[in-house]
């Protein structure tokens, strides 16, 4: 048997037909990266077939963090699922709360008071900011810069998490939003402290940009690596910064204008090349836009109640029907699909996680690159395994 045939035989059982042909005269090497690989942001396995250092097949294997979220939610009340949504994407629990609250509000036709909408935007944009900061930090760490950028990112994240704790009682597992508003009101002191933190954020982005954006090593490692074509991104349902880095103008804050987003002025940054560097830069630019939204929201926030007087905390039964609530979470389109049969629990509860769907194009981005770049490309997708496996 000639070598090409041997290799073709070795590749049987992999998930798709040959895209990149192996060349050279060695054997193929199959490597299982993970599930306990430090770069995998949790427990995630990539089975890769290597020809030398070149990746010619990649098979993602997940489910190690499966916690049965959707089925549990069908067995408990609508309110009971709220704290579980914190644990989906545990880097940004506020946006998860928001998407779920939005879905239930659509299902029950519940109005949300003005002040609660502003608080949601403020907290949501703070979440977006800290998610992008830490995701850039993780990305640079995977490149080998052990710690410094990540610690810089976490320094700002810590200030934001302190604000979250002061308002909601917990740094990460906030359990803050309710159907028809927010759980507690923000004090004037809290708003002042938030204004102070937000005023410092722009300087931090500048610092971060000086530290990283022009760095030759970073550019050499990321430019032209892991290119995602816009047509493939659209076909695969990729959303969020990943999609916009490929140059597709799609931001649910603009498209849907959910909540009160159509009141704020902000731009949607778009990338040109769709490579890892573009994804990094898009996140940096989105952080700047978030600061703009935060400043507007903190200036305009009205006084008033934060819970709608008609809202019920527990024991409500929505009319039979279905609702899909979606928001632009920091990682992409996060949607909750609910079907009610008139009972106190949802009949069907489905999460559309951006992390999982953005991950489906991983193989296409990695093929032909070196194994060291796979870690980098994977990091640039920005996933959280709690959301992928649910």
């Amino acid at each position, binding site marked *: 048997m000639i070598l090409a045939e041997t290799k073709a035989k070795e590749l049987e059982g992999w998930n798709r037909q040959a895209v990149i042909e192996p060349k050279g005269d060695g054997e193929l090497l199959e490597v299982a990266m993970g599930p306990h690989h430090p770069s995998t942001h949790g427990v995630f396995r990539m089975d890769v077939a290597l020809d030398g250092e070149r990746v010619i097949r990649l098979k993602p294997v997940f489910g190690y963090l499966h916690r049965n979220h959707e089925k549990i939610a069908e067995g*408990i*009340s609508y*309110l*009971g*699922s*709220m*704290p*579980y949504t914190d644990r989906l994407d545990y880097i940004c629990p506020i946006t998860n709360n928001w998407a779920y609250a939005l879905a239930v509000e659509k299902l029950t036709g519940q109005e949300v008071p003005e002040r609660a909408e502003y608080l949601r935007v403020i907290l949501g944009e703070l979440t977006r900011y800290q998610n992008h900061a830490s995701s850039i930090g993780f990305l640079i760490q995977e490149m080998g810069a052990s710690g*410094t950028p990540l610690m*810089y990112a976490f*320094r700002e994240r*810590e200030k934001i998490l302190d604000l979250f*704790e*002061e*308002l*909601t*009682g*917990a740094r990460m*597992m906030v*359990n803050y939003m309710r159907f028809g508003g927010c*759980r*507690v009101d923000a004090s004037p002191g809290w708003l002042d402290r938030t204004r102070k933190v937000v005023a410092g954020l722009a300087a931090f982005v500048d*610092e971060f940009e*000086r*530290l*990283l*954006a*022009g*760095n*030759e*090593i*970073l*550019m050499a490692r990321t430019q032209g690596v892991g290119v995602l074509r816009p047509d493939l991104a659209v076909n695969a349902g990729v959303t969020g910064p990943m999609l916009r880095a490929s140059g597709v103008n799609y931001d649910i804050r603009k498209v849907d204008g959910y909540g009160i987003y159509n009141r704020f002025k902000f731009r949607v940054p778009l990338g040109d090349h769709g490579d890892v560097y573009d994804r990094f830069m898009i996140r940096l630019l989105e952080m700047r836009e978030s600061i703009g939204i935060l400043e507007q929201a903190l200036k305009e926030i009205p006084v008033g109640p934060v819970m709608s007087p008609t809202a019920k*905390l*527990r024991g409500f039964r929505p009319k039979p029907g279905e609702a899909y609530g979606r928001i632009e979470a920091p990682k992409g389109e996060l949607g909750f699909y609910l079907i009610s049969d008139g009972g106190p629990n949802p009949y069907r509860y489905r999460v559309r996680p951006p992390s999982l769907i953005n991950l489906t194009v991983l193989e296409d981005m990695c093929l032909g690159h070196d194994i060291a770049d796979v870690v980098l490309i994977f990091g640039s997708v920005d996933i959280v395994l709690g959301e992928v496996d649910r």
Partner: protein
Amino acid sequence: MLGEGILKGLTETAKNFFGSYFSAERLTTVEYPEQRIAPFEATRVFPFLVYDAENRDGGGPEWEAGLRCVACQICEKECPPKCIYIEKSKDKKLDYLGKAQYYPARFDIDISVCMSCQICVEVCPFEAIKMDTKFELSTTDRFGGLLLDREQLAKSNEYYHQIHSAEATAVDAKLAIEKTKFDAKAKVAAATAIAKAAAVAGEGA
């Protein structure tokens, strides 16, 4: 020039490195077991049961007689991870209003299951369960040690005032209003009962 970006980045790290010697704002950490940062007012860890100090019903220890919980089991039903177990009492005793109510003969919370979501606090109509801020709870017995019973869960209202002062004051005011309303109602009820009794007596005569 090649390497310019790296040098720029290095000046940034150098600035931060030397800045930490001069700016107190940069020293964000404390030496934990000796120095502590006070928790926020809203901080929550695990739930506890509030009891009032005055011993209403006589008999039994203070914490047992003063428990606000009336074993309505709403929290048990609403708890998402189902970590609360309540057994209702057979007999009744007086609650803070002076009304005869059931009380929990057993009230267990498995804090190894509890996820600190605060839903039990929100749904409780009697202000009986609140969130603690104590977080150093390590124990050598991972099953029994983390299954807290009534006695371990009961904390006084003074303790609640210590950890969440603003919230506890608001709760006390709310309970006082309820009590005056209840007392007024009871007075009216008593007066009508006396009037009725007198009327009945009058008819008899």
